[in-house]
């Protein structure tokens, strides 16, 4: 069976039947997007892989909790968002959290890279300053490729409310980054 053409529900069913290759395909399919979601939500690059691992571990342990009305990706994003929130709470107790600068790779145009890096840092700070629900709706929509119905199912809200959260987030980000 060629797994990359199988839908997410098909892979979940195959994994439940004991096919571990289906789990590998689900990780391959969703890990990069999950990583970008976590990074955009304020995770440090060094902690992203551990958070992804924990997200899949929890997801595979309670696949019964996945309602088919939400896409698997938006459900995974929700789990990852919960993990990140818990991680930040733990860290807040230990020390102040900030979006740290990551090391810039030596490129051909250091000045342009620095400018791009600063713009990216501002964007991440803007995203992390949003209320969590607004941020998650916005990222699910823009990075998670989910529509309002899927987002509503994943976050336990209504499609209309999800749409309002999306527009709140867009408006705030525009104000913050103008």
């Amino acid at each position, binding site marked *: 069976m060629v797994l990359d053409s199988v839908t997410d529900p098909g892979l979940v069913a195959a994994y439940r039947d004991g096919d571990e290759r289906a789990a590998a395909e689900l990780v391959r399919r969703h890990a990069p997007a999950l990583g970008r979601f976590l990074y955009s939500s304020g995770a440090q690059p060094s902690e*992203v892989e551990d958070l992804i691992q924990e997200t899949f571990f929890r997801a595979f342990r309670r696949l019964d909790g996945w309602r088919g009305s939400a896409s698997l990706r938006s459900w995974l994003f929700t789990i990852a968002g919960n993990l990140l929130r818990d991680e930040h709470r733990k860290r807040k107790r230990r020390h102040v959290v900030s979006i740290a600068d990551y090391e810039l790779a030596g490129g051909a145009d250091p000045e342009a890279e620095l400018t791009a890096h600063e713009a990216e840092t501002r964007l991440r700070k803007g995203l992390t300053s949003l209320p969590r629900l607004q941020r998650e709706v916005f990222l699910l929509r*823009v990075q998670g490729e989910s529509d309002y119905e899927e987002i509503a199912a994943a976050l336990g809200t209504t499609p*209309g409310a999800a749409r309002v959260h999306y527009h709140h987030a867009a408006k705030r980000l525009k104000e913050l980054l103008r």
Partner: protein
Amino acid sequence: MTNCRQLSDRMPEVTRGSVRWTAAEERHLTRCDDCQHEWDLVRRVARLGMDVDLGVNPAAVTDRVLGRLRAADVAVPRRRVWAAGALAAAASVALVLWVKVPAGTPRAVAVTQESLAVTPPAAAQPRLPVPELDGLNADQLRMVMESMDQPFRADEVLESSGWSDLESRDLEAGFSS
């Protein structure tokens, strides 16, 4: 007639290439600074993290996840065997005591509903706190959306570090308008 909100709703799909702008939308976009700003923002967020090495190796993640799942699956039956042994021992003791109790002594112990009550299982999926918007109907949501056309005050934005505080204020503003 194309308006900013319609364009805003379609930006994520256009960014990922699943749909294209209509001619009317393109005209609106070239004329509207606010939409251009949002369009730039959405495209930047869509690409955010793509140029950063996040060190994610899906194969290694899979190995570790499956390894942990196997270990967890092994741990559960062991606990069950131990629990079954303990239950069997307790049952044996109870049987011996029951046999030794003199005739005429009441043997049955009243089992109340309370003693049988069990803690309900935790929800299968952690849920976010229900936001205020969930209880609103379509008209009310539209009012909230319209209230967003009022500019944010800078102090409101900076103060809003918590969860839904600004949303509550926006909702109140929407209802009072």
